[in-house]
């Protein structure tokens, strides 16, 4: 029985790590710019599809780099063309949320026209050896996913807490107006946030694309799990969201060990409800005070 338990915990860790990759980018953008960037799912899906496209013409390493750059450009273009116009018009974050849902639909359907509807897999992922730890089986890509999300946890913690950029981002997140009085230019910070957030989204998309199938509406289901994890961990803290996403992965996988597996999404949302009611600031976040 112990090997099954080990497999369950490992599955929870893998699923949690995948959600964490999405949650990291989502919560970075959400904490600095104070709105739920739903279309981050579209950026993640774009990352996966760009890797699929480039890996057909280039060898793996250039394909990955090209895919990352194009995803960042796509994310920044999204901010420039829609969110920036809304910010100029002092749109509330509810308006930004609805606009991001609109962008999510737009991206999904652009992928549908561009890449067609059928499910794709990325050719790079063919040789994927399986390892066994304590009786539980894990593939190379899954190890890379867990390692990346752990690395991101540390890197983002370091970035936000110990670098000048991180302090500036947190200053803008805490109070945009006052941050300006000390010479921080918020629009440059927003650009940096979107570049970083979209890069995280691109990395998430590529790794998830290697691990699972690619289908046009993959972005939506991923971003929903991503923001649920972010809320659990604390939307205002990036590394908190990564932790929250891991918790979500664990609870989901352990949950459907006892419940019928059809309730997997429902478990995620009951968890979201519980945190929204009892601890909206999440495990590590601070009160999400807004004007």
């Amino acid at each position, binding site marked *: 029985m112990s090997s099954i338990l080990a497999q369950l915990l490992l599955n929870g860790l893998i699923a949690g790590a995948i959600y964490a990759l999405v949650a990291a980018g989502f919560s970075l953008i959400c904490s600095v710019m104070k*709105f*739920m960037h739903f279309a981050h799912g579209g950026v993640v899906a774009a990352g996966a599809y760009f890797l699929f496209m480039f890996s057909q013409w280039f060898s793996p390493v250039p394909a990955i780099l090209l895919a990352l750059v194009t995803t960042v450009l796509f994310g920044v273009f999204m901010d420039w063309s*829609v969110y920036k*116009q*809304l910010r100029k*018009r002092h*749109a*509330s*974050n*509810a*308006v930004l*949320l*609805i*606009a991001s*849902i*609109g*962008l999510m*639909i*737009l991206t*999904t*359907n*652009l992928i*549908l*026209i561009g890449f*067609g509807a059928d499910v794709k897999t990325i050719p790079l992922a063919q040789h994927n050896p399986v390892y066994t730890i304590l009786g539980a089986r894990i593939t190379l890509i899954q190890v890379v996913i867990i390692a990346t999300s752990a690395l991101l946890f540390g890197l983002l913690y370091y970035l936000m807490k110990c670098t000048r950029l991180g302090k500036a981002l947190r200053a803008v997140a805490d109070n945009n107006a006052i941050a300006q009085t000390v010479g921080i230019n918020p629009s440059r910070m927003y650009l940096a946030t979107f570049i970083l957030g979209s890069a995280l989204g691109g990395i998430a998309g590529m790794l998830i694309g290697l691990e699972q199938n690619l289908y046009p509406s993959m972005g939506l289901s991923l971003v*929903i799990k991503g*923001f*649920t994890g972010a*809320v659990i961990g604390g939307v205002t803290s990036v590394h908190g969201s990564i932790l929250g996403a891991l918790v979500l992965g664990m609870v989901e996988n352990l949950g459907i060990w006892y419940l*019928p597996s*059809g*309730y997997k*999404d*429902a478990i*995620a*949302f*009951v968890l*979201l*409800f519980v945190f*929204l*009611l009892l601890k*909206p600031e999440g495990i590590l976040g601070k009160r*999400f005070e*807004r004007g």
Partner: protein
Amino acid sequence: MAFSAYLIHLGILSCMYVMLAISLNLALGFTGMLNLGHVAFFGIGAYITAILSMQGLPLWLTCILAIIGGLIAGILLAFPTARLRGDYLALATLGFTFIMAAIARNWQSLTRGALGIPGIPRLVASNEQYLFWISLSTVIVALLVSWLTKSSIGRTLQAIRDDELGAMVLGKNVFAYRMLALGVSASIAALAGFFFAHFITFIDPSVFSIDDLILMFAMVILGGLASNKGSVIGGVIIFLLPEPLRFIGFSSSIVGPARAILFALILIGMLVYRPRGIFGKVDLS
């Protein structure tokens, strides 16, 4: 004759969407509640009448029970979300829609799960009669909501939307009013679900799909927040707008996604260039 039958069909579905837009506007436009759970109430209404009418209950009874079911669901959702505002309320209510979809898919003894419920009795034989009944009830719903929003209750709802604290200090029990708004909005959505179930005679968990949710939001925002006239016109425009796409000579693999892209562009375009929509006077706070 043929063209009129097609128009009647579109008329029936437009009435359904107008009811959904008006009721969503009551929560979103008048009370300022970003409720992404509106499609769940629609689904609850559809399932209640489908399950009960298959047991042989008369349709006027299942209609009332569907409305009451919607009311109860709206009130129940008001409790856990009492303290939530803005994006957090949006996330929680979106979660409610997904939970209802999972229940519809997994509680197989009640809802037959993914197989859905076929053979739901039609309300009336011909579509013309159906159009009469659904447009009658749409007019009644529109009058009820516009009376409510013009009354002192409606004024208090708008006060709560603009400044909750200000309303509280004037003795208004904000939670009770929000519960009322969500309850009424939910029961109208459930009524729309009732008409849908008896028109299409087959429902399955896809009634809880969030694609419809985005459609409803586009209708309310295009029409204008806190304007019932706006929701009616926004509902009709958004529903009928993609119809000409059917007649365009695109190769059909483009027509499908083009419709969704058209919606998304309209939604984003409205939010950027005209956030108040056509008739709205209020910004989404």
